[in-house]
């Protein structure tokens, strides 16, 4: 129960941070730091795929309601949530059944960086590819994906250092 309340607090906090501050930062008009994916990245390693996918979908949907992009964040985050378990297995050498919370303490800095790099890249690629349906500028798309992935990584890493232990 306490766990659920704690999780809801993070849910609301990350949504507000994302829509009120991070989405308003337009660095060159092409960089969006998607910090709210941190919510999905911090789920325990044994969390079931169904649980992850449902949380991902609803978190994405709430962010969509704020950004007037119905379906875009929901589709991308559901996809990230679905592949999260596989990504985690890819970067860690631990036993599959081991139950731990992905973070610097459990994974170590190099593996954690690899984990957030792969996750951010996956999310940003899906999101920006859906976004670009309206206009095809390949060069702009590549730059956007690269820049947003790096910005997302940086934000997630900072969040992990500042408050990651408490989730």
């Amino acid at each position, binding site marked *: 129960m306490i766990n659920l309340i704690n999780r809801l607090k993070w849910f609301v906090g990350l949504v*507000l941070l994302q*829509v*009120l501050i991070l*989405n*308003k930062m*337009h660095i060159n*008009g*092409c*960089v*969006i730091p998607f910090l709210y994916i941190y919510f999905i990245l911090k789920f325990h390693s044994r969390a*079931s*795929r*169904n649980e992850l*996918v*449902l949380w991902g*979908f609803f978190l*994405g*949907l709430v962010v*969509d*309601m*704020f*950004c*007037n*992009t*119905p*379906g*875009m964040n*929901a*589709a991308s985050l*559901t*996809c990230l949530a*679905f592949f999260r378990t596989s990504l985690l297995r890819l970067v860690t050498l631990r036993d599959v059944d081991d139950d731990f919370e992905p973070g610097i303490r459990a994974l170590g800095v190099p593996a954690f960086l690899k984990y957030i790099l792969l996750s951010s890249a996956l999310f940003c690629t899906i999101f920006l590819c*859906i*976004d*670009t*349906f*309206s*206009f095809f*500028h390949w060069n*702009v798309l590549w730059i956007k994906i690269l820049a947003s992935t790096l910005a997302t990584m940086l934000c997630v890493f900072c969040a992990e250092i500042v408050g990651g232990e408490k989730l």
Partner: protein
Amino acid sequence: MRNLLNFLLKYNHWFLFILLEVISFVLLFRFNNYQGSVFFTSSNALVGGVYELAGQVTGYFHLKETNEDLMQENVSLRLQTEALREALREYTNDTTAIERIRQVALQEYDMYKAKVINNSLIYSDNYLTINKGREDGIREDMGVISGNGLVGIVYQASDHYSVVIPVLNSKSNISCKVKRSEYFGFLSWDGISSEYAIVRDMPRHSVISLGDTIVTSGHSAVFPTGVPVGIVEDISDSNDGLSYRVKVKLFTDYARLKDVCVIEKKGRHEQEELENRARE
């Protein structure tokens, strides 16, 4: 049968995943085609309320710039009024003429003041949310302008909030003309910079040069003639070579848009009805 059930149970996460993705894409494509999904946008009451609250807080940080803009605009308008008054006095000796012209210019339009409470610039389809809705008289397809010039068109309205399609959206298509020579084309966005838009379908024989001012044409019944849009920055050939493609630097700075005005032409519905009937 048991095998089928086992199969379904074993791969249930795949089915859930596919189901949620399908729902997401239905929402995505429905919103692009259909204007009814107020619940899933920032014109819904909860989301609008959060943005309004945040806007009230951040509004204080921009008061200085807003005041400076207003003062500048006030001064230029005052100078312009004075010059026009002088000119009019030279041509006519009728002292009530100015008041009459002012009344005629405004009586054709209903105006509603509103505040921008949410704004995006980074997507391919950007939207603005304003804090006025149906109860304040806002309806779909009304025009939105700011002190500097054109902003966009109302897309959805709930009871207290509305979502506006600004020029910075792939759906935006507004009829514009060159102020000096009256040749017209359609203003749209190429998805690159929030400071520039493109006027397409400008005829090859049109008289146009760098630095010309682009204004709304007034053909669409959404905007009056002459709402400032921007300045011509570059002229090139369109892909098919049949018309000009004009790059326009927009007067409206979308990154710090706060106060806007929603306008509606009286008798607009009559004009639209007539045009629709003619098309059928």
